[in-house]
């Protein structure tokens, strides 16, 4: 990003993803007095509390009242301010969905929803605090863009890009530390544009959020142990989805796996499937995610293993997909 944020790699190794979010928001807030912050008694947990400390007059802790919070944010956006609203993903997208839908998305208001504790990342807290439906819900909100950063660095990029992009944006991050994946901020992050992390012609793994790291690990093992060249796409933007990158992958590799910390219905896998189906091109395809069930509890990494959205799960799926009988098509080259 060009605006010269000052967080460093050193910070990124020490800070959790949401701490990086808080730090970036403070830097943005310094430059842009129109930014205001909101939380519903989760300023500490979501780390928007860092912004609160720095700009107490521009921060509103509305108490445990998410519906009211999103309504107030809408009113502020209508008056020309730029609210960043943070609470847990499950409360942002379900408890206050009517307000997010009607007050913010319907009116195309400039509110940035930075939801934390997404997916299974609140593992031990139980299913009332897991959120494996938010991408499906938010993807169907017209006007709203949906981003799932892979790690802290990408979160910093996404939060900054969100400020400079008008309209409602939903960014989903995890609780706690994410495995750091990007080693620098300047890798060309752009909303709506997938990042190609490994080249490959045998299979493409399309991932978002915490599954990106797992996908790259799986691709390395496939390359070293199986001699399989897997392409990995960091599909950080679920909406608008990068159709070009998906169709290129269909053409080049003919085998696609999607992997996400979300119900297999309605999220990344569905978005990719829609693009493939709409193109009319054949492709072996599997979606990895939570299999339309309310999740069990456990540590995040254990749950990722349990639901096979970790490195081993991706490996197993990739090997199965590569072994599938797949009909050749002489006209493949004509399709792009």
């Amino acid at each position, binding site marked *: 990003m060009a605006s010269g944020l000052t967080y460093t790699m050193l910070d990124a190794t020490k800070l959790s993803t949401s701490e990086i979010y808080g730090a970036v928001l403070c830097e943005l807030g310094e430059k842009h007095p129109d930014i205001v912050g909101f939380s519903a008694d989760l300023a500490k947990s979501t780390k928007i509390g860092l912004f609160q400390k720095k700009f107490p007059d521009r921060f509103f802790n509305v108490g445990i009242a998410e519906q009211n919070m999103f309504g107030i944010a809408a009113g502020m956006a209508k*008056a020309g301010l730029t609210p960043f609203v943070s609470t847990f993903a499950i409360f942002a997208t379900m408890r206050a969905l009517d307000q997010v839908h009607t007050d913010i998305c319907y009116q195309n208001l400039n509110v940035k929803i930075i939801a934390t504790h997404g997916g299974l990342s609140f593992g031990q807290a139980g299913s009332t605090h897991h959120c494996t439906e938010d991408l499906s819900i938010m993807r169907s909100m017209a006007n709203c863009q949906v981003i799932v950063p892979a790690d802290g660095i990408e979160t910093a990029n996404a939060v900054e890009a969100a400020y400079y992009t008008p309209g409602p944006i939903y960014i989903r991050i995890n609780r706690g530390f994410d495995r750091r994946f990007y080693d620098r901020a300047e890798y060309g992050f752009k909303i709506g544009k997938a990042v190609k992390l490994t080249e490959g012609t045998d299979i493409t793994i399309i991932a978002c959020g915490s599954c990106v790291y797992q996908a790259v690990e799986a691709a390395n093992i496939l390359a070293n142990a199986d001699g399989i060249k897997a392409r990995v796409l960091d599909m950080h933007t679920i909406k608008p989805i990068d159709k070009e990158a998906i169709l290129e992958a269909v053409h080049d590799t003919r085998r696609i796996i999607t992997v996400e910390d979300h119900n297999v219905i309605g999220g990344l896998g569905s978005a990719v499937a829609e693009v493939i189906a709409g193109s009319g091109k054949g492709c072996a395809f599997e979606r990895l995610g939570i299999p339309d069930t309310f999740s069990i509890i456990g540590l995040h990494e254990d749950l990722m293993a349990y639901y096979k959205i970790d490195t081993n799960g991706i490996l197993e799926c990739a090997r199965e997909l590569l072994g599938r009988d797949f009909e050749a098509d002489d006209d493949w080259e004509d399709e792009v």
Partner: protein
Amino acid sequence: MEIIQVNELSKKAYQIRKLTLELLCEAKSGHTGGSLSEADILSVLYFSKMNIDPAKPDWEDRDRFILSKGHACPALYATLALKGYFPLESLSTLRKLGSKLQGHPDMKRTLGIDISTGSLGQGLSAGLGMALASRLLKKQNRIYVLLGCGELQEGQVWEAAMAAAHYKAANLTAIIDYNRLQIDGSNSEVMELSPLADKWRSFGWKVIEIDGHNIEQIVNAFEEAKQTVDCPSVIIAKTVKGKGVSFIENQVGWHGRVPTKEELAKALIELDERMKTL
């Protein structure tokens, strides 16, 4: 307040009612009762109290009005047209295919609408957001939110009430169109609201109770709210649902039905007669 000004505002309210019934009859669907009950309040806000300019609907320093009971927008559309936001002729497009005048108000489509509403219970939060933004931006404007009585059953209203008092949002005024009827019956039958004034008072609001059809009381209530500097104000306006037309007044069934052509003709005669007595 001078009699002549009171009469002018009363007359405007009757014009709002007549236009409302005409456009509802033309649309063949919509909400009649709650539109008629709020007409006097709208008249005072738009033709006396609010600092607005229809030539500059996006003027930053304008006062804001939110119709939280969005279904009662026919009377608001009539008011906006009378004020000059759009031509009176466009009122006949209400609820028709692709019309700017939806069954619930849409700020993206209709000039003069400050926020879209329709899902009940949400307007006060948006109004509080505007009030806090005005404070941050050091503006002197005021924010008015008109709520129905039935929608006070929504929990979000009380979240907003608690927060507005917490933030001492004195530039925020809520008005309750307290006609005591909702779709399925009276408030008491469906879900009791009383003691309503005590509820608001206990939430930390300045409470002003008035007759919502008495122009002078409405004007004075807004003045009293403006003079209140340490907390938000709520005007509990006792109204009659369907006010102005005897066969519509106080009838639950007239919440969501519209007049036939014959009923419209009868209603307009009655409204004209009442207007003459001013």
